[in-house]
C-alpha cells in the first residue's frame, strides 16, 4: 500500500519515466527551436533597419566614413560647433512612419506604411486594413482640420468618422489622382496634393461633398465646371506650376502683406501669390531643379518667418530672397548646408521650425540649425534615432513642448525645453 504523497509521486515517476522523458525532451526541443527562430528574426529585423547602401564592416566604407568623420570634425572645430546630448524617449514601435500630426486634443496621429496609428493617453491604437478600421494598405499623410482627421494614401483619401474608423472618401472628392502625397488644412481650405495636381476644398464644400452634394451650386450643369476650378496643375495654371506631380504643400502668410501657397514637385518648387489668379503664370515664382542645382526630390520645406528652406537628398537649401521680396525682387539664388558644414547626413528628410531653430531629421540622426551653427543631437538617455522620416511639433506658438520623431521602426520624442 502507498500512503504518503511522497511514495505516490515516487511510484508515479518510476512507472511513467519514459513518457516524462519524451515530454521533457520535446519541450526542450520546442524551446530551443523557438529561441533559435526568434534570435534569427531579431537579426533580420535589425538588418532591415540599417539604411545605408553599404555595411560598416566592409573596409571600403569604413574608410569613407572615416573621411566623412574627419571632415565633420574639421568643420566642427573650425566653426566652433558644439554638439549637444539630450534625453530621447523610448521608441514606440510602429511600421515605417510617413507623417505625424498632433491634433487639438493632444492625440498623436501617425501615418505609416501599414495604416494609421493613434497615440492617446499613452495608448497606441492601430487603424489598419487588417483590423478593418482603415480602408487602404498604406497611409502617406495625415491632417486635422479641427473637425475631422484626414488621411491621404497612395490609394485615395479617407476620414476618421464618429464610428471610430477611417472611411474612404475618395469617390466623394473630385481629385485629379488617387495617389495622394500631402494634405494640408490652412484654417479655411483643405489642400490635397496628388500625382496629377493640387486640389483644394473650402470647409463649407467639404461637408457637402461628404454628404454627396457634388457642388456648392446644386444645379447639375455647373458641377463639373465647379470641380475643375478647384484643381491646380500644369495645364490649369498655364505652366505656372511647372509639374503636376506635386508632393509637399504649405501655406505661408506675411501679416498685412501677402499670402502664399508653396508646392514642391518633380521640377522643383513653385510658389503662388494667392492675391493673384493661379491661371496667370506670372503669379507663380519657380525654382527649377536644372537651373538651381537642387537635387530631386525635395523632401520637405519650411518657412522661418523670413526665408523658405528646402530639405533635399544633397543638403539643406535656403532661398536667399526673402518671401516678402518675392513679388519684386525674386531670384533663385540659394545658400546650401551639407555634411561639410557639420550636418550628420546630406539627406534631409524632414524639418520643423521653432523659436529661431530649424530642427533637421536626416538619414543619420537629428540636428538643429541655430544662430548659423549646426548642432548634432546625441542621446544622454534613450536611443537616438537613425533614419528620421518625419518630425512634428506638439503645441501652439510659445507652448510647443515636444518634438515627435518618426523613423523606420516607430516614433519617439524629445522635450524641447530640455534641449534649450
Amino acid at each position, binding site marked *: 500500500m502507498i500512503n504518503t504523497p511522497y511514495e505516490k509521486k515516487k511510484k508515479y515517476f518510476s512507472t511513467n519515466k519514459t513518457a516524462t522523458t519524451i515530454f521533457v525532451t520535446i519541450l526542450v526541443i520546442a524551446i530551443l527551436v523557438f529561441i533559435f527562430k526568434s534570435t534569427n528574426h531579431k537579426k533580420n529585423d535589425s538588418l532591415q533597419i540599417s539604411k545605408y*547602401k553599404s555595411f560598416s564592416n566592409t573596409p571600403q566604407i569604413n574608410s569613407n566614413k572615416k573621411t566623412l568623420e574627419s571632415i565633420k570634425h574639421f568643420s566642427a572645430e573650425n566653426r566652433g560647433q558644439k554638439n549637444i546630448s539630450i534625453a530621447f524617449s523610448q521608441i514606440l514601435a510602429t511600421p515605417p512612419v510617413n507623417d505625424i500630426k498632433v491634433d487639438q486634443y493632444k492625440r498623436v496621429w501617425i501615418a505609416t506604411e501599414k495604416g494609421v496609428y493613434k497615440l492617446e493617453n499613452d495608448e497606441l491604437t492601430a487603424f489598419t486594413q487588417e483590423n478593418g478600421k482603415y480602408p487602404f494598405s498604406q497611409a502617406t499623410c495625415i491632417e486635422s482640420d479641427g473637425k475631422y482627421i484626414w488621411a491621404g494614401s497612395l490609394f485615395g483619401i479617407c476620414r476618421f468618422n464618429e464610428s471610430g474608423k477611417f472611411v474612404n472618401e475618395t469617390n466623394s472628392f473630385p481629385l485629379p489622382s488617387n495617389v495622394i502625397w500631402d494634405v494640408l488644412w490652412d484654417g479655411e481650405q483643405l489642400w490635397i496634393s496628388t500625382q496629377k495636381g493640387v486640389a483644394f476644398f473650402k470647409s463649407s464644400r467639404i461637408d457637402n461633398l461628404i454628404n454627396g452634394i457634388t457642388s456648392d451650386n446644386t444645379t447639375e450643369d455647373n458641377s463639373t465646371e465647379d470641380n475643375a476650378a478647384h484643381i491646380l496643375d500644369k495645364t490649369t495654371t498655364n505652366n505656372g506650376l511647372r509639374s503636376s506631380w506635386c508632393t509637399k504643400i504649405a501655406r505661408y502668410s506675411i501679416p498685412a502683406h501677402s499670402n502664399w501657397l508653396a508646392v514642391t514637385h*518633380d521640377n522643383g518648387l513653385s510658389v503662388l501669390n494667392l492675391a493673384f489668379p493661379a491661371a496667370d503664370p506670372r503669379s507663380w515664382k519657380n525654382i527649377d531643379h536644372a537651373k538651381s542645382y537642387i537635387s530631386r526630390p525635395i523632401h520637405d520645406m519650411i518657412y522661418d518667418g523670413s526665408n523658405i528652406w528646402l530639405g533635399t537628398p544633397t543638403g539643406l537649401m535656403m532661398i536667399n530672397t526673402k518671401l516678402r521680396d518675392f513679388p519684386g525682387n525674386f531670384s533663385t539664388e540659394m545658400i546650401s548646408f551639407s555634411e561639410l558644414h557639420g550636418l550628420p547626413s546630406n539627406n534631409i528628410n524632414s524639418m520643423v521650425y521653432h523659436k529661431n531653430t530649424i530642427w533637421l531629421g536626416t538619414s543619420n540622426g537629428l540636428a538643429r540649425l541655430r544662430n548659423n551653427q549646426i548642432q548634432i543631437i546625441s542621446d544622454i538617455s534613450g536611443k537616438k534615432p537613425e533614419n528620421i522620416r518625419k518630425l512634428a511639433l506638439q503645441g501652439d506658438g510659445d507652448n510647443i513642448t515636444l518634438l515627435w520623431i518618426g523613423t523606420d521602426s516607430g516614433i519617439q520624442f524629445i522635450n524641447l525645453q530640455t534641449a534649450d
Partner: protein
Amino acid sequence: MKSTLKKSYKKIRRYLKKFDRFQILTIPVIILLIVFSIDFSSKNIKVGIVLPLSGNFSSRTQSHLNGIKLAVKHINDLGGINKGNIILKIKDCDKIDTAEATRDLIYKDKVSIIVGGFSSEDTRIIQYLSEKALIPFLTGICTHFETAKATAYTFRTITDDQHQFEALSAHSSNRYQVKRPAIIYDNDLYGAESAQRYIEICSKHSQQVTNAVSFPKGTINFRDYLGSLFKTKPDSLVILAPAADSALIVRQAKDIGFNKPILGANQCASREFLHLAGAYSESVVTTLPYNPRAGGQKFDSFLSEYQETYGYKADFDAATGYESIMILALALKSIPENNLNLRDSLATLQVWDSIIGSGGFDNDGNQVRPAEIAIIKERQTIPISMEELF
C-alpha cells in the same frame, strides 16, 4: 444516432484513460512543434516589372523585357533560387499611370523588388515610391545621371549618362580633336539637365559648346534646329535624343551636308536607330553601356539562345535586361548565406562577372563599369577597341 455518438465518446474516453496526463500533453506540444517548424510561406520570389511597353519606346523596352524573361527562364529551369522560383508581375506604364503601377506592385502584389524604369521621370516615380516603402528598385535601362544618387534602395546595373558623356567627350577630343561641339537634345528623355551635364563635362576636355538647342516631342523636321546650330560653325554634332529622333537628325544633318563627326549617346547603339538611320548611320560614334566581347563565351550563348527564342538578334537592351535579373539572382542567393535582407544583399555586390563582363555597385548603388565607345560600320556597332578587326 445519439446512442452511437455516446458510445464512441465513451470508447475514446476509455482509450485516453490508458495514458497519463504527461503523455496526453505531449500531443499538442508535438502538433505545435510541427506547425512552428514548417515554413508555410511560399518561397517564390515576386519581381515587379514596370516598363513603358506599348508606346514610343516599346522597341527598346520589349527587347529589355525579353532579356529579363530569358534570365528568369534560365534561373527557374535550374531549380530557382533558395528552392523558390522567380515570378514576374509585369506592368506597362504606357497603359497605366507609373505611380499606380508601382503602388499596386508594392502594396497589392507585395513584390520583393521592382525592376525597370526607362525614362527619367518614370524612373524617379518608381524610385520615390520604392524608397518610401523600403522596397529595392533595380534599373538596368535608365541611364539618367540623377538615378541612384543619394538613395538607399535604388540600384542601377547599366552605366549611367555621366560615365557615357565623359567617355564620349574624351574620345571626341582625343580622336577627332573636337573643340567646338554643338548639342541637340530632346525635352522629354534627356532634357536640359543632361545637356547641361554634357556642357560641363566638355569643359573638362577643353571643349567649348558652340550652341545647344532643344526640340519638342513629335518633331519631324529638324532642319531649322540644325541650321541654327551649324551657323555657329561647330566641329562636331552631339545628339542626346531618343533613337527614332536621333535617326531623323542624322539623316537630315547629312542631307544638309554636315560632314563632321556625329556623336550620340547610347540611343544610337540601339537596334531601332540602326534600322531607321540605315546607311546614314555609317561612322556615327556612340557610347555602349558595355563591350559585347567582354562577356566571352557566355555572351555568345546568350546571343544564340535569344535569337532562337525571339527570332531576332539581341541588342544591348536585351543584354542589360538579362544581366539585371542575374544580378538580382546573385543577391537573392546570398540572402540565407549572409543572413541579410535583399537591399543589403544587393549593396554587397561590389564585383560581379556577367554575360557582358565584369561590373559592380559603387557606394550609391550605381554601376562602376566604364562606358565603351563604338563606331557604326555597315549598320553594326563596333567597339573602338576592336575597330581594326573590321
